């Protein structure tokens, strides 16, 4: 059931990202809520589940976007796996640590996305990609985690996303 709620959340965030998040876009850049969710899931659940749910969430994104199939799936596997590397190693009660990890994982995932764009023969200049997208999204995602990590963590411990182990 937890997985079902997680995927429903992914779908809800895709809808938000394609609609109202555009109203809070800064210089055309909006936070990537799906990526944040997958990173945090990896952070709290470990590399295996992080990468697996990252893959499933990515396939959903690929389906909705209807573009290059596999681009979001591969990016989100990376994000979930990188997030999972923090599990057991980093202190999970601290929102600043979670925000820092999100910043780092967003970098990794966005770099993978950039490489996949090259595979799909879509040219974006490196500097534009870094300054225009990767760095702003990393900070924006980290800010979202700073604001909402408490809510997500509570849900993970005793809410809809809990597996009853606490």
């Amino acid at each position: 059931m937890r997985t079902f709620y997680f995927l429903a959340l992914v779908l809800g965030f895709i809808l938000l990202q394609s609609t109202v998040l555009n109203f809070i876009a800064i210089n055309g850049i909006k936070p990537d809520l799906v990526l944040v969710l997958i990173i945090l899931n990896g952070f709290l659940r470990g590399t295996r589940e992080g990468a697996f749910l990252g893959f499933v969430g990515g396939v959903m994104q690929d389906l909705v976007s209807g573009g290059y199939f596999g681009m979001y799936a591969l990016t989100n596997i990376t994000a979930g796996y990188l997030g999972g590397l923090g599990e057991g190693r980093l202190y999970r009660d601290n929102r600043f640590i979670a925000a820092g990890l999100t910043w780092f994982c967003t970098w990794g995932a966005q770099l993978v996305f950039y490489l996949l764009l090259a595979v799909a023969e879509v040219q974006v200049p490196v500097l534009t990609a870094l300054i225009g997208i990767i760095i702003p999204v990393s900070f924006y995602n980290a800010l979202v985690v700073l604001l909402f990590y408490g809510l997500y963590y509570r849900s993970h411990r005793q809410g809809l996303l809990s597996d009853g182990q606490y």
Partner: protein
Amino acid sequence: MSGLSLGKKLVLLGLLIIVMVTGLHYSAGGIERLTPLASSVRDILSPVQRVIMIAGREVSNLVTTPAKLIGLSKRYRQLDEKNSQLESQLLQFKEISEENIRLKKMLDFRTDLAPQLATEAAAVTGRDHGNWFGSITINKGENQGIKSDMTVITPAGLVGRVIRVSGNTAEVLLITDPRSGVGSMVQETRSPGILEGVTGGQGSLKMVHIPADLTPDRGNRVITAGLGSVFPKGIPIGTVREVCKEEAGLFKMAEIEPYVDFNRLEEVLVVTSYKLETP
């Protein structure tokens, strides 16, 4: 999965990645096809997106209105002063405008494309959910006569072209998308070039392959060229912001400031047919 050895897991992961990258490589040339599943997903999500978009816009207006009221009286005084200045300028501009109309008639150059285009109005119901690509979803599709490669505009200028159509929605590739290319030319110097998007989210454009002997100046207008392109000729795109040499050195490239504000698109016009009136 837990019963598999590490080696087998790695082989499985490797296979998965190879399959996905291969799929990605081959789907790269076919983004203009929409699978029946993706088409159905879009038709189902479109009304939901529309409702969320309208609600979001209302909330956004509600939140920003008090902030706008601060300093309103100061702004009113400034505007009042500006108004008197503008009234005097208007008289001068009317004279210039009359002259402009006469000159245009002499050149027989049509800038008003409206009579030549048949359009279908559509509302923007969603945008690409990522930051890399620039596309919008509109609430008109195959059932309303929308087809792939139709040009999309606003009264301000060129927006993009339809790339995928489902029953009641269509996806429009914005000209700011890095996958977009538009045959264009500078109106004043008649320099041809290709207009390319840089990143989807930001509204920046670049015009490449401009012949060095026809270098445009800052502020020159860029319009669609119409030659062998899906876009009708003469649709305004933007103005030249900066010109520099291309890396190869043979051509020039220019940064273009688009007329359309791509972050504020609410309604667009899809050009369903057009006829070019040649002088």
